[in-house]
């Protein structure tokens, strides 16, 4: 009942991963989606606010993009993604979590293709396939150990 209050055993005892909505692997997937959505929203906002005649200072730092609601949506998604990332780091080794975030290099080109109508050449499809293969290499044993629990 009051398992929250009991002092947690150090080093030797591995804590059980949280399940359900707090499962860190679920959050890793959500993190990939949040980063992708925010990048696509930032791109929409940047395209919407192009002003060739704006002053040099505004152009260099991209401040003019702050006038777009898309950009603020993108920023909000980024902040959520950071909080989400801290939760992931609490439970998953960095050497596994960080390579898995490379899924954004797959999702962003796919999102740009699907939502923004950008072109993906055959070489880029090959790169996307390699990234998916790498993620599969890392993620497969993790899924196995999750099933074993």
């Amino acid at each position: 009942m009051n398992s929250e209050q009991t002092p947690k055993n150090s080093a030797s005892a591995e804590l059980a991963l949280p399940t359900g909505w707090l499962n860190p692997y679920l959050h890793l997937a959500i993190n990939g989606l949040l980063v992708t959505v925010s990048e696509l929203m930032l791109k929409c906002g940047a395209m919407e606010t192009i002003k060739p005649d704006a002053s040099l200072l505004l152009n260099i730092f991209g401040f003019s993009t702050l006038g777009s609601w898309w950009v603020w949506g993108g920023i909000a998604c980024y902040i959520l993604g950071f909080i989400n990332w801290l939760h992931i780091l609490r439970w998953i080794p960095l050497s596994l979590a960080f390579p898995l975030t490379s899924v954004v290099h797959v999702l962003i080109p796919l999102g740009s293709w699907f939502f923004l109508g950008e072109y993906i050449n055959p070489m880029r499809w090959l790169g996307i396939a390699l990234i998916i293969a790498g993620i599969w290499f890392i993620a497969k044993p993790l899924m196995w150990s999750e099933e074993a629990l």
Partner: protein
Amino acid sequence: MTARLLLLIILAQIALVSGQIFLKHGMNFTQTENMRYSPIIRNISAGILALTIWFLLWMGLMQKLDLSYLYPFEGMSPVLLVIATCIILKEKLDLRSWAGVCLIALGTFIVGTS
């Protein structure tokens, strides 16, 4: 590409890797301590600072260089980070995961340069 830009790229990579390691080191304490424990706050703050430096350096580089020059370095960051994690945080990685990291780096390289 000049030596100065290369130096900036290396600095940006160091900032990214050290920022992530600070964050992870800080969050490792949350297994045993509550969030107000000062090493957690200190490490997370250092992590946010390092990642802010990385972000600014990277934005500056993106203004000066084509993304296709920068993407191969973006692809290297998982490899550098995993090496640093194994050395500094003593995380263990099996051969299969190393192969996965290398495939991801190669794939990111191709996505960026194609």
